[in-house]
């Protein structure tokens, strides 16, 4: 009985738990415990969902018994089950880490509010991924975005307010564009259900209204996923947000937006329209290439490590979009694979930084000089994550890079293969700057002695650091899921 309602539970668990937390303002630890329980429950749900769709057919869930396309439909196939797993998995793993980190960075009387916003953001992201309804996507985008603005604004630095405000403006423009696009689609087809849209669009697709809808949706979602040059909100938002929020958002928020773009381009509009009639390949590829190159170079010159990683995130979005722009099964598979691998890798890196913030209260590279002697485990986790980010063999990052390169060669674009190899060397430079400072420089004069981070911080950090190695060796799960996801997305709705 209950397994029948899993798709609904996926979103409703965090959505309903969020308001409950507001009654726990005086008991922050209890609020944390409840949030943790909810996150692990959603993780379990998404694991069960992935298992169910892995073997069998996609699941269609009609809310309130209203049959699609009239009611709201939740739709789960391997493509979005993978995204759901990423979102819920990262939030489950980050929760043990959150307890100490949040207690230190957030005033005590606001901790319960903080978790309320966190669960709302979580519910929003899961909702975007699971829903089969275009208008519903917009609603969940807004839920997650408004909650994220609040989360970012709670950062330890007052600049967090400005970062949150910029994000608010850019994010609102993005979702408004998305809404306009969806409105146009509704006007032309009279439906909001994604599968139904895919069926009805071909009849009307040679109109400028549909082309305008396509453009609005593409630009709106690209703002949310921080596609270069629409990424300007991201570095500040990631830098000044509380450590735990950065971990969560970097691993999930842009990934979910990328999934939405994939869904619209491949399943709703169809490959033929997006990449045949409209030259999206020629639009996305140069943006992806510039988006890899320029932020990578900018990352080298950052004095703040958190900011450096934020720029690296923009570059990684470029890698994903590049795979996506090849419009081939192999390229799409590489994109889906990187979605997963990068979430794991980047979350590990940001968690290691969170542990450093917990001890020294700063992420400036100068403040981190010589830190490896005092915090060997934290820095070792950072190195492992860094190696995966660079794409050294036997790490998850390498597997993605391998498939991305093969996809480039398959498309006959060997200059892009050369370009990709060259840019991964830039990652070597910016990661190695941190390693050199932490391992081979002396502690700054007058710096207080620090101890290794708390096991509660280290354990989740190492879980993800090890995961980025394990998924580089035992690749069956991510490769299998990504291949199936790519086939499903390319195949459109059944």
């Amino acid at each position, binding site marked *: 009985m209950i397994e029948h309602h899993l798709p609904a539970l996926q979103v409703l668990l965090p959505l309903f738990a969020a308001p409950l937390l507001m009654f726990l303002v005086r008991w922050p630890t209890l609020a944390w415990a409840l949030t943790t329980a909810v996150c692990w429950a959603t993780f379990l749900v998404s694991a069960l969902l992935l298992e169910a769709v892995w073997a069998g057919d996609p699941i269609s869930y009609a809310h309130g018994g209203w049959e699609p396309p009239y009611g709201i439909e939740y739709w789960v196939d391997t493509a979005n089950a993978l995204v759901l797993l990423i979102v819920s998995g990262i939030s489950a793993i980050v929760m043990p880490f959150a307890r100490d980190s949040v207690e230190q960075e957030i005033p005590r009387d606001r901790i319960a509010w903080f978790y309320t916003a966190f669960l709302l953001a979580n519910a929003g992201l899961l909702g975007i991924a699971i829903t089969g309804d275009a208008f519903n996507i917009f609603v969940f985008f807004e839920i997650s975005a408004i909650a994220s603005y609040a989360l970012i604004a709670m950062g330890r630095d007052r600049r967090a307010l400005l970062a949150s405000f910029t994000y608010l403006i850019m994010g609102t423009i993005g979702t408004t564009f998305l809404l306009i696009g969806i409105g146009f689609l509704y006007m032309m087809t009279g439906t909001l259900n994604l599968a139904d849209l895919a069926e009805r669009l071909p009849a009307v697709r040679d109109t400028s209204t549909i082309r305008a809808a396509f453009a609005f949706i593409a630009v709106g979602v690209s703002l949310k996923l921080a596609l270069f040059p629409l990424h300007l909100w991201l570095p500040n938002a990631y830098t000044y947000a509380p450590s735990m929020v950065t971990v969560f958002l970097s691993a999930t928020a842009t990934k979910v937006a990328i999934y939405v773009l994939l869904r619209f381009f491949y399943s709703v509009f169809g490959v033929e329209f997006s990449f045949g009639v409209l030259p999206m390949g020629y639009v996305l590829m140069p943006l992806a290439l510039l988006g890899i190159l320029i932020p990578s170079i900018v990352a080298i010159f950052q004095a703040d490590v958190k900011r450096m990683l934020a720029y690296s995130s923009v570059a990684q979005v470029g890698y994903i979009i590049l795979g996506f722009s090849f419009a081939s099964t192999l390229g799409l598979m590489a994109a889906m694979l990187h979605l997963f691998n990068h979430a794991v890798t980047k979350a590990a890196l940001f968690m290691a930084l969170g542990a450093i913030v917990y001890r020294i209260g700063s992420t400036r590279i100068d403040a981190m000089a010589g830190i490896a002697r005092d915090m060997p485990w934290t820095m070792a986790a950072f190195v492992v994550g860094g*190696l995966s980010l660079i794409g*050294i*063999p*036997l790490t998850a990052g390498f*597997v993605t890079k*391998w498939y991305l*390169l*093969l996809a480039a*060669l*398959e498309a006959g674009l*060997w200059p892009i*293969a*050369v370009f990709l*190899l*060259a840019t*991964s*060397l830039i990652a*070597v430079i910016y990661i*190695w700057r941190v390693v*050199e400072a932490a*391992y*081979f420089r002396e502690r700054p004069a007058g710096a207080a002695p620090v101890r290794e981070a708390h096991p509660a911080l280290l354990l989740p950090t190492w879980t993800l650091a090890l995961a980025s190695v394990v998924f580089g*060796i*035992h*690749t069956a799960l991510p*490769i299998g899921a990504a291949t199936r996801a790519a086939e499903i997305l390319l195949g459109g709705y059944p």
Partner: protein
Amino acid sequence: MSAGTAIGLALATPLAGMLLMLLFARLPNLRDTVMVLTAATMFTVVLQVLPEVQAGGRPSLELFELMPGLAIAFEVEPLGMLFALVASGLWIVTALYAIGYMRGAKEKHHTRFYAFFAIALFSALGIAFAKNMFTLFVFYEILSISTYPLVAHKGNEAAKRGARVYLGLLLGTSIGFQLLAILLTWSLTGTLDFTDGGIMEGKVGHGVGAILLLLYMYGIGKAALMPFHRWLPEAMVAPTPVSALLHAVAVVKAGVFTVLKVSIYLFGLDYLQELVTTEWVMYIAAFTIVAASLVALQQDNLKARLAYSTVSQLSYIVLGAMLANQIAAIGGGMHIAMHAFGKITLFFCAGAIYVATKKTDISQMDGLGRRMPFTMGAFLLGALCVIGAPPMGGLWSKWHLILGALDSGQQLMIAVFLASTLLNVAYLIPPVIRAFLRPPQDGYTGGIQEAPLLCVAPLSFTALGAFAMFFLAGPLRGLLEGMFP
């Protein structure tokens, strides 16, 4: 013990040893004993693989499949057997030497140093035993990364700068060129397995093949082909045991070993002969041999001179591979072993001189022979081996390389080998002359004052080893002939 088990055990030994060393970090004597025992165990286990390879077998072991069709797997053929024996055998001597050196020169962070040393040996063995190019590449990268902390060991500005160049060039070439070449090979031929006779024939056109060759040769930065040789002199900031075992044997030989392996088992010698770029690479190697020797002549710092000498000697092997005939390939394989014994002796001597007198320059070495007769005697033997003079092992590898050049009708290359021999004499013999025939500059009149026994014994041993190789050339050639069944 079956040969397959031995392969797995040999790879596991240095890792287990490393863990034990970390465990005993606070008990220096126990930790150092563990290191020597680990090295000895590893060599013994590697020896267990030898009989089957000598009998013409190719024992193998598959660990796991990384991506569909791409496995981390091992298969031992004669060339890999030779490289594994040389690297693991010389590790025993170097381990002893390192104890003497690190204590004598009062270096810090011993445990970290020994631990990364063990990882480096682990990856060298992985390279030697790799069954396919992908496995080789993985271990090649582990080797680059694990030796970075060894080069940066002193932690001062010079060490950090040297290490940065080191890692930058090695990672840069391997990711920029080698990985690209591997990907192209994989997408064109559908396999990366080392196969007798190569995998390219009939699948890769000669034009693409020619480009692939350049990508491989420059992608294997550890072979130090000019102009990507700078990392080797820069790496000399490392403590001498690193220069001796890694930058005269394990790391650089891993590079030329990969060159031979790629030439013989991926391209195939017959296919190689038909590529235009084979001749180009041959001339680049010839240029590297002569140019690096000329640079070595100018160096006053002993370790820098030895480093350039290594650059020059490595290109012997690259040249041997590019001559693309069996006798030259065998000569190249022999040179891996012969040069290893000669050069490690020379580096051990340089380190011993530093520990005993803090001298690093050749111009300070006047009269040193009276103070350190064993060290300087060993230096002479090592120098003769590198020069290729009888009665040292170096003679035979050079002999085979020249025969190979004759076979290919490359008279110019014979001239290069001969000219290089003269240059070797010109830069390796003067330190010996200074040490024995000139009076000491600082008026030193005390008697014999050598470095600690743990420094002198290993260098005497490798010097004698270089001499013994003169008589072992026959069996060595017998083993290497197994490359061409």
